[in-house]
């Protein structure tokens, strides 16, 4: 539901059913003891595609006395109306203002959504800074998700952060709250919550800086632990998975049922934060995957099913899963898609299975143009494999191939950039050299993104390339591309530098974030709304330099702003991987050889 006051304005905005609630699958309760507003800091269309939210929403609502509701950022047309008519941000299920909830929980999916968080808190009528919320215990403003691995740029705005996987710890936190709410103050609750494994209460840590601006020490007080370890679900077959999901009226970005088939990744691509954050590698059994897929399809009525993970084709039983599922999906007229296939193990039989359902474009990410650079980033894909996969794809009737690359990778030279053009040209030639090639026009598009170094990766020490250097390299690439069949899309933007600064930023960026928002920044991940000058002004006002965070080489000894957060990836391992990168040495996938990152300590056994 929505507030009554909104009724007369709903037809003035685009896609009003973003704001009404009432979808099939939403959970409403007559009464609840603890209320949780699950906020996705972007618009409905984006947030309703997010798998993590679906899991945690259902998980909390399974508990009779707890009620979790959904909240999204309004599009500017609606925001204007809300501000003009003094309508505070509400939750979609009840239509009630979230400032009266016990928990306001944000998921931190990408850095450029941070200003949306401030904007949503402001729209909700909740004081932005944690220190201004007083001693009343509620609302508690909390956050989890991948970017919680370095939440320092948000530290002043949040009561606590939840590190790692939320299936258990979210309920532990709510249980503690339910026990303490009658008698405890906010501070007392936070001190107690800090004792739960995986809960990080930033106000219980003092940060000291060296004169050069780097972190000197991170000092816990009031009994807070010196290191906070992320939470991990050890058995994916026992791990909670929803049987019902909310089915939006409008079409979200990903309009389908997603079944998570595995967590973690065996690959160890050195640029990929998710590949390290979500370790260790854990699979669901083929039986569990199929059962969950069938249940969700049946309950939702969806005709689109996706098997999702960081690398679905790395599931050890992928063929078995496909064999079982395809019987059901064919009979039920369901499209099955595998969104994250890998070039090197994209076998003909998997291909055939997928193409029985639908032919569309193929997307691959070689990430770098030369073998040397692919070795540096440990993207263990060879040119032969790219060619082999494209050949299978072309034989299978595909004529559209998308290739993704990064620019500004460590050790990158102009040779590597020209390599992107060479590799793509070889794919074009391959197609035209095939006697039995598919009918239709070949379309190869390549897209390049600026590399952003992230915490808990072997590249966390690396500087991001300057914008001028990226621009120069783009020109090199454009010049090197000869074929008209190749469409290049690359854009430069200052967004990458802001993303890099926030990703590895410290607590002093809270003030920058606040000023950037005050200057009008929000919906920054939507290019039409991003304005770099607002950010640069905010940095300047606080006498900070984005280059200090984004473009500076960090020593192996430096205390990182996130050094007190334990994601079970040892610093020693990251340094070793970084050194190997500079020598262009690869590391084998975890399944072949354990590289000793440390993530298996939570399992108490080797991963494989």
């Amino acid at each position, binding site marked *: 539901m929505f507030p009554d006051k909104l009724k007369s304005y709903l037809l003035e905005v685009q*896609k*009003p059913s973003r704001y009404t609630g009432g979808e099939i699958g939403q959970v409403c309760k007559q009464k609840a003891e603890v209320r949780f507003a699950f906020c996705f800091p972007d618009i409905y269309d984006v947030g309703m595609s997010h798998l993590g939210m679906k899991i945690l929403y259902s998980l909390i609502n399974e508990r009779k006395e707890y009620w979790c509701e959904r909240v999204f950022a309004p599009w500017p047309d609606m925001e204007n109306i809300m501000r003009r008519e003094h309508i505070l941000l509400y939750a979609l299920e009840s239509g009630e203002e979230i400032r009266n909830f016990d928990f306001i929980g944000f998921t931190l999916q990408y850095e450029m959504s941070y200003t949306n968080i401030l904007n949503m808190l402001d729209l909700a009528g909740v004081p932005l800074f944690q220190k201004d919320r007083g001693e009343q215990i509620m609302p508690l403003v909390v956050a989890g998700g991948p970017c919680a691995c370095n939440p320092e740029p948000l530290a002043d705005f949040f009561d606590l952060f939840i590190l790692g996987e939320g299936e258990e710890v979210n309920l532990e936190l709510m249980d503690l709250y339910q026990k303490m709410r009658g008698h405890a103050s906010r501070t007392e609750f936070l001190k107690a919550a800090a004792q739960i494994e995986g809960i990080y209460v930033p106000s219980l840590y003092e940060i000291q800086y060296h004169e050069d601006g780097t972190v000197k020490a991170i000092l816990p007080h009031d009994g807070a632990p010196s290191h906070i370890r992320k939470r991990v679900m050890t058995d994916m077959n026992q791990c909670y998975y929803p049987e019902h999901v909310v089915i939006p009226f409008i079409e979200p970005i990903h309009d389908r049922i997603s079944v998570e088939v595995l967590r973690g990744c065996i690959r160890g691509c050195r640029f990929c934060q998710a590949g390290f954050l979500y370790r260790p590698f854990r699979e669901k059994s083929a039986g569990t995957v199929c059962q969950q897929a069938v249940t969700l399809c049946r309950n*939702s009525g969806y005709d689109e099913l996706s098997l999702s993970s960081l690398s679905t084709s790395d599931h050890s039983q992928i063929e078995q899963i496909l064999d079982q599922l395809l019987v059901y999906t064919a009979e039920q007229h369901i499209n099955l898609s595998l969104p994250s296939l890998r070039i090197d193990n994209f076998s003909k039989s998997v291909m055939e299975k997928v193409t029985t359902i*639908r032919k569309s474009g193929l997307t691959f990410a070689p990430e770098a143009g030369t073998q040397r650079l692919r070795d540096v980033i440990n993207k263990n894909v060879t040119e032969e494999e790219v060619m082999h996969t494209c050949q299978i794809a072309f034989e299978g009737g595909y004529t559209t191939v998308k290739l993704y690359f990064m620019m500004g990778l460590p050790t990158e030279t102009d040779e590597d950039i020209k390599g992107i053009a060479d590799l793509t040209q070889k794919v074009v030639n391959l197609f035209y050299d095939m006697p039995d090639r598919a009918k239709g026009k070949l379309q190869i598009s390549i897209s390049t993104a600026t590399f952003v170094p992230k915490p808990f990766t072997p590249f966390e020490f690396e500087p991001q390339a300057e914008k001028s250097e990226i621009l120069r390299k783009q020109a090199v690439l454009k010049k090197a591309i000869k074929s008209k069949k190749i469409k290049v899309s690359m854009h430069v933007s200052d967004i990458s530098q802001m993303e890099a600064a926030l990703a590895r930023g410290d607590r002093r960026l809270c003030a920058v974030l606040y000023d950037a928002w005050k200057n009008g920044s929000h919906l920054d991940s939507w290019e039409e709304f991003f304005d770099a000058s607002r950010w640069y002004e905010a940095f300047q006002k606080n006498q900070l330099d984005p280059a200090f965070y984004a473009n500076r080489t960090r020593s192996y000894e430096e205390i990182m702003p996130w050094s007190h957060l334990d994601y079970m990836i040892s610093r020693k391992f990251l340094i070793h991987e970084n050194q190997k990168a500079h020598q262009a040495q690869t590391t084998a996938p975890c399944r072949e050889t354990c590289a000793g990152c440390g993530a298996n300590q939570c399992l108490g056994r080797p991963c494989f």
Partner: protein
Amino acid sequence: MKDYRVLFEKKGISKYISHLDLNRCMLRAIRRSGLPAWYTEGFHPHLYLMFPLALSLGTESICEVMDFRLTEALPPEEILQKLNAALPEGLHAFAVREPHDQTQDICQAEYLVRLSGSALADLWDAFIHQPQILTQKRTKKGLKEMDIKSMLICESVIQESQELVLMLLLPAGNDGNLNVSVVTDAFQNFAGKPISVNAVCRMKIFCRNQKEFL
């Protein structure tokens, strides 16, 4: 294989579901209902589902029509019960029958319109008795001026304490459509002041000779 025509209401918050979204929503509802829906037999089979007359976003209705096909004949009560169990708030099927008329037979629809205002009846009267009712209509080539006088039939006017309640009969279907909002916008222009439209509800769909679409 048997064709069915479902009549349903679209009320409350479901009026904010656009026509395209309604299509996807109904498709999933039929799939959830467990009814033995018929799929097309082409290369990409899809569930056969047809809405003879689209409804504007924001308009409620007590007479919406949806056609689909089942692989076997079932009692109407069973179809209604299974479908309604799968429908979201505001959408409610109330009758199932064999299709009689065809989409192209549709030519008019009747709407109940509630305008906000305590003394609008005279103004409305003057509005519809103009020699011409000129209005701007948005087309692909930009704004086009047109006279809607001949298209607009006002069946009744009742001034309630806070609302002017109109019953309008407007062209609908393949041979020409007139949206209620075109009429209410023209009335606002005529009045020279904003008049808020509190509610619009489609009441009936007609074929030629004012025969109800069945």
